[in-house]
């Protein structure tokens, strides 16, 4: 029964629960964006499910007035998969932090992505363990000083978007908690995509890792250190909008060029093609200061989803008269009467 509901507002999706994140946490901004987007996606509230694991981000479902499951550390993708296999009609959103999804739950995220289960996966990346009081996370940069790594962390960080592409993700996007004009449209795109929509949301932890993203999120740095990719548009950035990306044929990697300098014209700049997996790989790897950080929908190329295909098989096989089929099947083959 799909009755078009009355137009809801963000308030209709807000629970009566007191939000318990630290004052100034980036999660507030993300929650605000999500609550703003939910009335726009035209899904009845009762068909939406938010699933989370453990961590600061994982408190999210308590603050969204839909169905919600606050599960255990790292396993949200597995719960989400089970929910979708039981009822593919549900609109499932997974919310997870960097430790939740790339450390303890790395295996589950890998398999969610390769199966392409039709959910939205929002990875709140603050490069730190917040809820357990500030240890280094799998996305912390090498040398990060934390209570567990007083001399600086030794391991190299994992890049969330590169991991997702490597796992076979068909939708990869990146945005920032404070970019309130950028975040909602990315969430809309993620929702519109059928399959696992992987969104890395750069999120500032004001207590344990404050300002760690300033080098590309701060207003003064954003123009030079971010590129907002858009399908079909040239890959341009910079405060003057004249810096662009192109492939260097000698390294098979991207290089930054400046339109108007050294004979470079705008036609030399690559056009973003979000269905190009190779380009997505190059874009998602880019890091300042040599390159701008890619924001927006880096990759989108839909493919059949695990839940739809499995459900189709079960539906095709399911019989109406289960009792009769049950009795028949048990009496097939070698049986005998005493």
């Amino acid at each position, binding site marked *: 029964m799909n009755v078009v509901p009355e137009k809801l507002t963000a308030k209709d999706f807000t*629970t009566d*629960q007191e939000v318990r994140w630290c004052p100034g946490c980036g999660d507030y901004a993300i929650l605000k964006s999500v609550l703003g987007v939910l009335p726009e996606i035209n899904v*009845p*509230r*009762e*068909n*939406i*499910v*938010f*699933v989370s694991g*453990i961590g600061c981000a994982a408190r999210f*479902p*308590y603050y969204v*007035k*839909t*169905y*919600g*499951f*606050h*599960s*255990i550390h790292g*396993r949200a*993708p*597995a*719960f*989400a*998969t*089970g*929910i979708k*296999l*039981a*009822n593919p*009609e*549900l609109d499932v959103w997974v919310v997870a932090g960097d430790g939740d999804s790339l450390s303890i739950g790395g*295996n*589950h995220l*890998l*398999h969610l992505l390769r199966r392409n289960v039709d959910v939205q996966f929002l990875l709140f990346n603050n490069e730190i363990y917040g809820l357990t009081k500030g240890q280094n996370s799998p996305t912390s940069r090498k040398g990060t000083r934390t209570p567990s790594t007083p001399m600086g962390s030794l391991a190299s960080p994992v890049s969330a978007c590169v991991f997702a592409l490597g796992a076979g993700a068909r939708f990869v996007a990146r945005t920032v908690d404070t970019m309130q004009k950028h975040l909602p449209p990315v969430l809309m795109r993620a929702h519109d995509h059928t399959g696992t929509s992987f969104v890395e949301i750069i999120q500032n932890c004001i207590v344990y890792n404050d300002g760690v993203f300033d080098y590309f999120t701060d207003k003064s740095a954003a123009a030079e250190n971010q590129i907002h990719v858009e399908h079909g548009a040239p890959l341009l950035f910079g405060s003057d909008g004249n810096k662009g990306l192109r492939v260097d044929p000698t390294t098979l990697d991207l290089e930054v060029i400046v339109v108007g300098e050294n004979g470079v014209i705008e036609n030399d700049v690559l056009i973003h093609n979000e269905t190009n997996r190779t380009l997505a790989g190059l874009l998602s790897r880019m890091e300042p200061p040599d390159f701008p950080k890619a924001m927006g929908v880096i990759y989108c190329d839909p493919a059949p989803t695990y839940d739809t295909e*499995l*459900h189709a*098989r*079960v539906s095709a*096989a*399911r*019989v109406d008269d*289960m*009792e009769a*089929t*049950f*009795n028949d*099947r*048990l*009496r097939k*083959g*070698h*049986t*005998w*009467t*005493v």
Partner: protein
Amino acid sequence: MSTALELERVDTPREERESVVVRFAGDSGDGMQLTGGQFTLATALAGNDLATFPDFPAEIRAPIGTTYGVSAFQINFGGRTIKTAGDAPDVLVAMNPAALKVNIGDLREGGLVVVDSGTFNERNLIKAGFAGNPLEDSSLDPFRKIEIDISKLTLQALKESGLNKKESLRCKNLWTLGLVYWLFGRDRQATVDWLNEKFAKRQDLADANIAALNAGHAFGETAEMPDGITAYIVPPADIAPGHYRNITGFEAMAWGLAAGSILSKRPLMFASYPITPASTLLHVLATMKEFGITTFQAEDEIAAVCAAIGASFAGSIGITSSSGPGVALKGEGIGLAITTELPLIIVNSQRAGPSTGMPTKTEQSDLYQSVYGRNADAPLVVLSSRSPSDCFEVAIEAVRLALKYMTPVILLTDGYIANAAEPWQIPDIDTLAPMPVELRTDPEGFHPSLRDAETLARTWAIPGTPGLEHRIGGIEKDYNSGHISYDPENHQLMTDTRAGKINGIANDIPAQSVEAGPDEGPLAVVGWGSTYGPISRAVNNLRDEGINVSHIHIRHIWPLPSNLGDLLGRFDKVLVPEMNNGQLLTVLRSEYLVPAEGLNKVSGQPFKIGEIEQAIRERVEN
């Protein structure tokens, strides 16, 4: 199409036996499981009661001719009720020296050994670790033997088949089966039909196998057997009238779970990760999509239990299965299902442990893990199945309790029950009691911690239901609202409620009955799970001798039946045989303060009837 040859019957003298145990043993590539399976079918069709047990190596393809590559299949059949696969074989079929080496020690003194002498060459004897040739020295003197060059006779029989030597030799097992059919007067037609069906696309292979089967049978009919070798006749058993089929524990479990889904009208979602010996349940359920069953091979044990819980949250019966090591990994997820009060079934096919242990060998050593093995006070329901066909009923009971009480249920089976087979009177699902589930739909007064006043079961409101949007999770919940709560008194109340809900189930399960013997007396033998067969046979044998002993077999491990304490208190002695170091024993002692004592065996092998008989005698005669 080939048929069973109608040979001129020689009037073989046949010796009547009440029951016989036969073990087929050969290299893992010799097709012993298949041979045993066909013999089982022919035996069932002949009207005997029976039980079987396969014993195959962990290695998929161990090197040919080695002792660790030996695969065996044992069947006990008779004209009386058969409760186990039998202690010691009366007949051993050994297809090579390694099979003889591994199994001859089990053969009953005076038993019959059938060997393929064609395989007893120097190379195979060395591989099997024989110093000399046991067919030529005195080592087989305690037994009767039939020495036949089965390899050569099979090649001769298939000379005209068009198959090459290698292909022809692969029909050796059918030749041997033909001979054993003759030995017990079995009809070959079912096997002929099966071969024609199996090799429908390779008629030459079907014909060759049937020719080998017939040749082996003809050999028995015509060859002159050594002195002391007779054929047998085992009269049909007195079996309750009805329609029967053979069923393994795994098949019965799958059918029981499917029946639970049909009877409750809730879809079944089965999520599992491959592990020996539990994987077969996933394989069987994967072929049962017509009942709306979704199966999911998850990326690991944890994902499997979590996906099952997710499915339960969304309105299905979430089921996962594994063996002990995998269940250990699922522990945190099971705790979440306990605190969110969602239905969940965990099937544990126990195996020898700890850690990897002996994956293909049986044990019942996960009772502590099931009853106690989680962090915090985390009670759930534990059931156990006693035999292959019993898995059907227990699986339905697991679904009933999981749905009615919104709780995880651990269902214990083991490698022995799961792979063993026995005849099963096919049930009619229309005669089984429906188990309707009431999903919450009314938003009026709803909150996710609402519970049924009588059962204490939490209300089940599934996503997709308007007006019932709610959040659940692993954080402690307020009793009166379902919101997260750190209130000390509330935590006490919720802990007590979770325990009270599970304890109350004791009033919703059958009172503990006595399997055999009076409900009071000098000695009760108390078992659970797959020790049922040997305990039952042992107690009945001794009761026939006039010894006063009773048998109690527990299906509901947790909560225990409400009358069990009183019942045990009426016996002077309580003996608890277990394939572990005394797990039910300590539960019974701590729950009821009874002076129970254990009979414990942890060898990876089931109890022999004689072992239990001896333990009973020691206690009644002292």
